[in-house]
């Protein structure tokens, strides 16, 4: 091939690469535009302070879903943090422990499983024994999604802490548990918080595992043993409903949820940045 044709081909391929990138970015802008444009119109005082009206009646708001989102997500994050941090510490601080290979396998497998399966699991483990849907079972489902993210982040950041730090502590006569709690974990704080925030961002957007666990509840409750509504659930139910006003509120909830998730991922980035 002569040089002219090769140069021409180079240009064509560069143009195709730019085109492919635009194919990805243009829909993203469309989605963000609609979420903000339609969502802003739906946010008003009632949206934040009232519960939903009966089907077909205009007005009402998302208060039970907003409260439910915080309760369900917070319990999930606590559950996931306890198990995830412990597993991460075990993998990184006790690398010779015989439990580590199966534990790593479990974390890898869990990371690759579809979210809806975690809902099935929480249904079998919590809803069935209790006999009814509950916010707690939703938290368990979300926690199962969050755990592998936290394990991976914790193990990764703990392994970045130089061994010299631990050896310095041990040389000063500190027992191993004080070395981990007072030297290693504080040094790794940024990375651990990043992992927690990433897990929160991931879990907060999930609706599928909550369909048959948290289930939804039009009345305001803070009792995690009762069924609860969350924003993703409400978006789904309202979007597939035939009512115009519910569609409007679904956009409002989508905006609120998107802001919540962006805030969590922003915090994750900031903590990650602070580490360096």
């Amino acid at each position: 091939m002569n040089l002219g044709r090769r140069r021409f081909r180079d240009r064509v391929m560069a143009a195709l690469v730019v085109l492919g990138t635009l194919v990805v970015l243009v829909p993203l802008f469309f989605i963000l535009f609609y979420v903000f444009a339609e969502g802003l119109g739906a946010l008003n005082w009632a949206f934040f302070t009232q519960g939903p009206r009966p089907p077909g009646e205009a007005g009402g708001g998302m208060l039970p879903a907003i409260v439910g989102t915080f309760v369900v997500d917070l319990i999930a994050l606590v559950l996931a943090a306890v198990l995830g941090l412990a597993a991460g510490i075990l993998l990184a601080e006790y690398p010779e422990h015989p439990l580590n290979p199966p534990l790593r396998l479990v974390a890898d497998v869990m990371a690759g499983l579809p979210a809806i399966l975690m809902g099935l699991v929480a249904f079998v483990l919590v809803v069935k024994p209790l006999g009814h849907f509950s916010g707690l079972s939703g938290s368990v489902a979300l926690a199962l999604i969050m755990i592998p993210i936290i394990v991976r982040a914790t193990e990764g950041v703990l392994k970045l802490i130089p061994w010299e730090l631990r050896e310095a502590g041990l040389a000063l006569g500190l027992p191993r548990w004080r070395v981990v709690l007072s030297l290693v974990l504080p040094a790794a704080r940024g990375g651990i918080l990043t992992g927690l925030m990433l897990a929160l961002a991931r879990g907060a957007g999930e609706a599928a595992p909550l369909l048959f666990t948290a289930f939804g509840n039009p009345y305001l409750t803070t009792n995690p043993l009762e069924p609860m509504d969350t924003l993703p659930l409400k978006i789904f139910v309202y979007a597939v409903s035939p009512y115009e006003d519910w569609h409007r509120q679904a956009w409002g909830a989508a905006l609120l949820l998107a802001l919540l998730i962006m805030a969590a991922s922003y915090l994750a980035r900031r903590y990650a940045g602070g580490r360096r």
Partner: protein
Amino acid sequence: MPRWIYRRLGDRLFAGVVVALGLGLVLLALLIAYELYSGAAPALGRFGFFGFLLGREWDAVRGVFGAWPALLGTLITSALALVLAFFPALAAAIYVVELAPAWLKEPVAYLVDLLAALPSVVYGLWGLFVLVPPLRAHVESPLYLWAAAHAPGVLPLLGPPTGIGLFSATLVLALMIVPYASSLARDALALVPREQREAMYALGATRWEVIRGAVIPYARAGIFSGVVLALARALGETMAVTMLIGNSVELPYSLFGPAATMASLIANEFTEASDDLHLSALVAVGLLLLLIALLTNLVATWILNRMQLEGGRR
């Protein structure tokens, strides 16, 4: 506090708690596997594993459950979405690493990753109210009318142009999995050593020839693992697909017509399932989804290891 409590007991206690929680997680995973299996057992026992897997009928009223339609729906949507997503995802990665001016690299990479942060329901909402109406009016209907006039033979393949169906679900699914394929491809491309590129420039290659001949082959293990990660996402994606696919478990499927995937079937019917066999059949679909997800990850790891061994360039 006496010294031995502080040292011996403290160490034992801390290690004990950490190990107990780790063991708890492993046991939890075993419990999950057992519970899913025992939940699925009634349906699998009734129809047999292969009878359930290949059963072409899913009829809750008559109590006949076969997973084939949902399995087929999952395979079709995931494969089509992967085909649609692959080139844009790779292009976005190449653009960020090779072509973009320095000030654009970060923002473009951030925006592509933002696609992964948006919740599935938001994609569904957008698809339902923004994408579907014009898709129905300007793509599906004209195609259908054209086919009706010129090639009536393909009409059963096209199906009713309602806007809600396999086609819309696949388009949105493709968009959702782009960031997973793209971010791993981007990392792999960025890891290609400078010398690799410069050697080829020194031979007089154009920029595209360098990308094509030196960069992409070097990064292919990473590109491939991104593709598999995207596939795993597509297989299990639930909400957006449930909202857009029309949820019909009736074969045969058509391009524009309604269909169902394993995940959408569970999401759609689980809360309504009243009798035990129906519930058990849905858990069995979940178990099947679990097996497919495991298999995907396993194959990916295996091929990835082989590719890296073969490459052996470092």
